[in-house]
């Protein structure tokens, strides 16, 4: 098997004196969807924030594209090809939809911007219909589509998304997750999704179970006992 695009070794991270992440080993390969599941407070968000450099890690190593990145700034990691869509609204609220997408492509090459925009509009036709609409007037589901669209425009190789399903109706979650699968298949990007929604099991290639700041298991999705995962890690 090829080398992982992202390799995390025994990282410890947290806020103030508290360590939320207590020694995590993790990896992700090019072109796969990795699900990171766990109950509230397990450390999913902290882990993603540590990967992109929003919080500093106290111990451990992060290798991305065979380079150690734990000492790098958010900007450097972003330029290397990593982007995070945080849990809260990942939009510029007072800009029209199209400008949100254009601004997200700030580090993309000029010649690929139009192509990326076409891909986003193909994936989410509603964004094309509403391209002149101010972003904060969109519905919750449309905002989430815009957020995902902005991640595509950012053209990163590894896209980290923190609980994309939160606050969305089940039907919209299903459609959104199907779109994630399309993104993976058509762009070859690596998607790492922190989730509590069981539907992640339908699209992820591998699942990491996180509990109290530690990885409890890492399995291919088809090898998982779905009922146990739902009960222990998704509050089902």
């Amino acid at each position, binding site marked *: 098997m090829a080398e992982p695009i992202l390799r995390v070794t025994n990282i410890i991270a947290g806020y103030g004196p508290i360590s939320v992440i207590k020694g995590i080993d993790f990896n992700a390969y090019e072109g796969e969807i990795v699900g990171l599941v766990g109950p509230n407070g397990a450390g999913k968000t902290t882990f993603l924030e540590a990967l992109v450099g929003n919080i500093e890690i106290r111990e451990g190593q992060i290798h991305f594209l065979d380079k150690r990145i734990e000492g790098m700034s958010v900007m450097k990691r972003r330029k290397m090809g990593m982007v*995070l869509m945080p849990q809260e609204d990942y939009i*510029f609220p007072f800009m029209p939809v199209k400008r949100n997408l254009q601004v*997200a492509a700030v580090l993309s090459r000029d010649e690929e911007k139009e192509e990326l925009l076409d891909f986003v509009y193909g994936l989410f036709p509603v964004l094309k219909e509403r391209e002149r609409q101010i972003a904060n007037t969109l519905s919750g589901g449309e905002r989430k589509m815009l957020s995902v669209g902005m991640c595509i425009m950012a053209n990163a190789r590894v896209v980290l998304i923190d609980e994309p399903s939160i606050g969305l109706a089940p039907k919209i979650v299903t459609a959104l997750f199907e779109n994630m699968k399309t993104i993976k298949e058509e762009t070859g990007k690596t998607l790492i999704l922190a989730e509590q929604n069981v539907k992640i099991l339908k699209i992820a290639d591998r699942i990491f179970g996180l509990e109290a700041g530690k990885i409890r298991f890492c399995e291919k999705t088809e090898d998982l006992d779905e009922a146990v995962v739902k009960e222990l890690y998704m509050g089902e």
Partner: protein
Amino acid sequence: MILDGLINGLIMGGILSLPVLGVAVVYGITGVPNFAIGLIGVFGGFTTWYFLSVGLPLAILIGIGICFPIGYLLQGVLLTPLSRKKEADSTLFFLITISFGFIVEGAIRSVFPKPTISIAFPRLGAIHIGDVSADGFKFVALFVAVVALIAIRLLEQHTKAGRSLQATSQNLKLATLIGINTNQVFSLAHGAGCSLAAVGAIFWGALYTLDMGTGWHLGFMGFIIAVIGGIGNIWGGLISALLMGMVMSFAGYFLGGVWQSVILYGIVILVLIISPRGILGSERSI
């Protein structure tokens, strides 16, 4: 009398709106209320006055131009590194920018030979509207304010730097995550804001007189008017400046000059109680 008050109010508001735009750009984007901005603008005004011998247009450019690096460096060297510290809060920025204002005041006093100046602009004669006549140059000040506002909006929407400014003011965390160099954006915004304050100070110096008191006055008034308009909301800032100009003008006519401040600041308190995010709402999300 009403037309007279209206015209004078509009003109006063137009002049005030220039430092307001400076404050709105700086605070709207960096989140730092720079109370020294009026003094920096006055420094630009004194510089223009000092270089008048090279010709008015070039002197104006020098005066406006010198304020840009002052704002840029103030942000990049002092305020941005400071904002990363855990202890950094609005009180700290208040004290630091006030202190910087006193440093600029000292610099003006030591560099320039006179503490009070007026900048000689060519006069345009009086313009008559009905029974009211006003110095034509005052209308130029109003016109420049409106042009500056439209220019800011166009730059914001049609340039990469402008879109980065807009994005940073609306969602700082997201702007950083998608790869906008937000530190550079902060410095650019601060430089641009100080240059706008200089434009305001130059007009003030041409219409009235310019001294240290004007610097503090323009800075504080600019900040208050920007808050009333809705921080970061540039249209709100202009409307607020015009309204406040008219309030001062009519208060002066009907109640006398001593009541101007009482009425003005009474309205400020009332607006902030009813709508803490200003009359048109704030675009700041941080």
